């Protein structure tokens, strides 16, 4: 089980550097994955998604990599900006399920 009041992992990067945020997912049957960004006091905001028949997908300044063998997902942010500072969650959509299962989150802090 999980502890109450988890301390979020934190990633601090210099402005302009690339960021890599990692996530381990739990359900090998999951077939759809999403990265969300959550700023303080706001709802999760969609960044990028990927389906299980792909291992890489690129968006604007962001790339998601999926390794189904080890059930690992990563989000790469190129040229990180102060506006990227937020908590980042991966979420998985299990096959046959309606719900998204969220990961624990990583707090990204961008140092100007």
């Amino acid at each position, binding site marked *: 089980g999980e502890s109450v009041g988890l301390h979020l992992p934190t990633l601090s990067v210099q402005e302009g550097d690339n960021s890599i945020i990692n996530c381990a997912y739990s359900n090998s049957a999951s077939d759809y994955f999403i990265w969300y960004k959550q700023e303080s006091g706001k*709802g*999760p905001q969609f960044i990028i*998604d990927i389906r299980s028949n792909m291992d890489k997908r690129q968006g604007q300044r962001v790339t998601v990599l999926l390794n189904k063998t080890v059930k690992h997902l990563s989000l790469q942010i190129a040229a990180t900006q102060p506006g990227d500072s937020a908590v980042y969650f991966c979420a998985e959509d299990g096959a046959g399920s309606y719900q*998204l299962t*969220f990961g624990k989150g990583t707090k990204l802090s961008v140092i100007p």
Partner: protein
Amino acid sequence: EPEVTQTPSHQVTQMGQEVILRCVPISNHLYFYWYRQILGQKVEFLVSFYNNEISEKSEIFDDQFSVERPDGSNFTLKIRSTKLEDSAMYFCASSADRGNEQFFGPGTRLTVL
């Protein structure tokens, strides 16, 4: 750009009182969801709703919780008798189809005293 809206932004209530949280999903979406996030923790699924009925619910969604789509635009979450541990951010989300991106609203912060 269409967005999910939620009201109120903050609700304070006494333990044992009923609360109704309101959401207006994106207009052409067919799947609706409620999630909650206790302070400092991850987002947790509560319930999904499709075709005017619950399609899936979690263990959190016990008989104190109910959802309703009273008209063509609103989607509500009712907590019949609030407990202290119900204090959390409650997010509504909607999607065009199952297995598609879920768009989240800004949330309602529920504080139970």
